[in-house]
């Protein structure tokens, strides 16, 4: 490519070095910067949640046996049902809510009625007893956490965010539930975990925001 300059080779080395020094080095630096920015942008695009830095941290949760081994994967992954279809209160309340049994029966009075898990569900329904689900994710009583505000920030008020991809926002704190059957706690949900995420995403940082 230097041939186009039609300069003696000695010059080439010399002029080339100057070129590298004067122009190319800073350019490379800027290129690297641009690549980095684009790269991270690409990483963001991959997560499907714009304007967000997912929280960091892992936790190895216990197996929690549930009255019915509810397959989140069948619902959210295979059949692509939106998390908020069942956890309908998440957008309106501090709690996401366990779906009312009537919601399960809305489909399962006709779908897969012969499966043992559905038979068990139907039994609960007919006895007018909701299944005694076991709580997997929780924060202490002195922590005020609200699903509503987090969904507002990362989904509904988040420009470029597709509501269909809400599972990825849920996954910030709940892990990839759509790959699980019954839920496992895979994020620590302790104060450091919350704090780092609030720092990275410029969330509120006053003590009383959560401890009120």
């Amino acid at each position: 490519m230097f041939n186009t300059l039609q300069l003696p080779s000695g010059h080439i080395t010399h002029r080339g070095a100057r070129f590298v020094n004067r122009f190319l080095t800073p350019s490379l630096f800027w290129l690297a910067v641009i690549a980095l920015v684009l790269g991270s942008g690409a990483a963001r695009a991959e997560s499907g949640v714009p304007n967000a830095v997912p929280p960091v941290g892992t936790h190895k949760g216990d197996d929690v046996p549930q009255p019915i081994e509810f397959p989140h994967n069948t619902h959210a992954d295979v059949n692509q049902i939106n998390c908020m279809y069942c956890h309908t209160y998440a957008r309106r309340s501090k709690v996401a809510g366990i779906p009312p049994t009537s919601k399960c029966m809305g489909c399962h009075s006709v779908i897969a009625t012969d499966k043992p898990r559905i038979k068990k569900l139907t039994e609960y329904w007919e006895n007018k007893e909701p299944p005694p689900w076991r709580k997997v994710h929780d924060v202490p009583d002195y922590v005020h956490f609200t699903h509503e505000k987090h969904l507002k920030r990362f989904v509904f008020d988040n420009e470029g965010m597709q509501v269909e991809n809400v599972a990825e926002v849920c996954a910030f704190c709940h892990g990839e539930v759509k790959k699980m059957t019954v839920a496992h706690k895979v994020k620590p949900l302790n104060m450091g975990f919350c704090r780092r995420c609030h720092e990275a995403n410029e969330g509120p940082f006053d003590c009383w925001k959560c401890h009120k």
Partner: protein
Amino acid sequence: MSNKVNRRDFLKIMGWGGVGATLAGCDMPTTVTLEEGKEEVTSYMIPEEYVIPGVGVYYASTCQQCPAGCGLHGRVREGRVLKLEGNPESPINRGRLCQMGQAGVQAHYNPDRITRPMMRKGSGLTTVSWDEALTHIQSKMEGVSGDRFAWFTDTVSGHQAVLMDAYREAVGSSRHYVHEIINNSVSRQVNQDMLGDPQPRLRFDKARVVLSFGADFLGTWQSPVHNAVEYAAFREAPRGVLVQVEPKMTLTGANADLWVAVRPGTEGVFALAVANALSAKNPAMLDGLPDKAKQLVRRYDIKKASRITGAAGEHIVKTAGWLAERSPSLVVAGASAEGHGHGYDTVAAIMLLNVILGNIGETIEASGAFPFPQLVARTGGTRDVMDFAKALDNKELDAVFFRGANPVFTAPESLGLRDKLGKVGLKVAFSQFEDETTRLADVVLPMYSAMEDWGTHVAAYQAGQAVIGIQQPLMQPLYEQTRGFGDVMLSLLKMRKVPGYDGYADYYAYLRDAFSALPDSLKNGASNDEFWASALQRGVLEVATGGGSLTAKVVDFDLPENPASEGAYTLVPSARLGLWDGRHANIPWLQEAPDQISKVVWDSWAEMHPRTARKLGVKTGDAIKITSANGSIEANVYVYKGIHPDAIAVPMGQGHETYGRFAKGRGVNPVKILALNTDGKTGELAHHSTQVQVSKTRVRDSMVIFGGSETQLGRKIVATVTADVYERTEGEA
């Protein structure tokens, strides 16, 4: 954080590293274990249309923690009541609520509630079915008629009182004993005799000077939350002056501009001396008074009054000066003025000031007649419990129904109720908790909590706009075997075949019908259903009271030349906003809330002046024995300047023998050792006149005091100036 970090180091770290340094420990394992899968989370079967889990729904109701009848808003989430606040629509509390009201949820969720009906079989109480309990009552009551039956209750009003009356009348009895150890019965009698209105409306907000003789109107007197709202207006510019005269500093006393400690029993002398000082400047003030009253006023010049009361003469002059300069004023009397053998006369002397200062009709207004006399509050004091004891002595009673009141705890031990109650064939307790009286009952009927029951309430003290407070359930009953008071009354009326009650399935149906029967003038053209819905939504129903007017007649009264008690020390059984008369001792929040004056938590104490403490050789924390002619109690000393050297104050509320895990065996009950002295004119217990001996028993016991210092030790943490300096430098507020 390692536990080597002390407070100073902590502050240094905060200073250097800012928040980040202290937050570095946030990934440490939490001290609260939130183990996965240990708790259940229950979903709805079918969701309620208007319910969003996690979002509160608010219902209006009426507070039952004391007789003031404040309006409530209860926040209900997922069918559970979580938080109580004041109802802004209620003219009584105007959106505010005191700590006792706030703690109502802990009465409701209390783990020591009675959950099943019980009957005495042999020596103990045995769980039985409702059918068995009610049938037993009915069969026993068949043999009871006339005055051999009695109700024994705390303050009751509204439709519950109507049903109680209906049952009492069906039996043919005229006996309904109402017992409240925290009361204003003597003042009510004086008001009736002087003003023609037992409970006139007091306008703290209009007054420019308030002179209070032991009336703890911000804490325990009449309607504390209402008074506090008016007090706030009173303190706004131009700032009103508050003078409090009492033997032991109350919450109100702690807020006063001038707090005067007087020898117990001499409040009347102080009042007459103020009248004397006022008339010295303006002799016309005494015109129109009966000669005897004039003589009494003239009897106490400042020097003499100062000698008798122990108050500085300049304080009498200063008080008179304020009263003369600023008008209108308001003079009120509370427990420490009422509770003497000459209580009526003391209160009359105090009320005399209102007459000569022209406050009647200004800051003391006629309450007007409540249009539904059958709903009006049945209030009482301590006279009824003494009449009750007499009736027991004479074997006049075969059956007594108890509700709310706990006289075995809140009456002096020397009245002997514990033994005398054995003479009654049938004792029925409508109760939520196993208190000292319930424990002695033959049949115990477990009641709904105030958050589960229906009711209507008419407060004894109606603040301006008179209202019927509506109590509605804030949630489903916690226990299957508890019942509503009104429901049980309807069952008993039906079982007794009292005509007119067969049509009501439950108390709710009865109330619906009662509301439909209210005059159209209250309904503003609404249908019965709309009217009921709006009453429930608002929590209060305003009713118009007839105008009414007040007289300003000075009654015949007299005081001993020197009314001070003669013994060495007078026992002051003090009341506090919190445990009240002991009914809230089973509420941990209120046990934990420090006393407003001593800051002691979870215990009893004996307040004592430093001079007295020196004389007895005791310090804060030492245990003393307080002995009256009727027994003795032991408590730790709390040395404090806010008490007269001749008084020893022990707060009421503790000293329960039973009443659940939070109350039992904690502290002592001063009411136990009170002498059975009575006020000569009203027959009320002279509860502030018991003479006691004090002796030291142990040194330095543990005593949990919040705070630990009464002064700022010269550090000026909160800068203050005296009223005089403020007025000189800033002008009149």
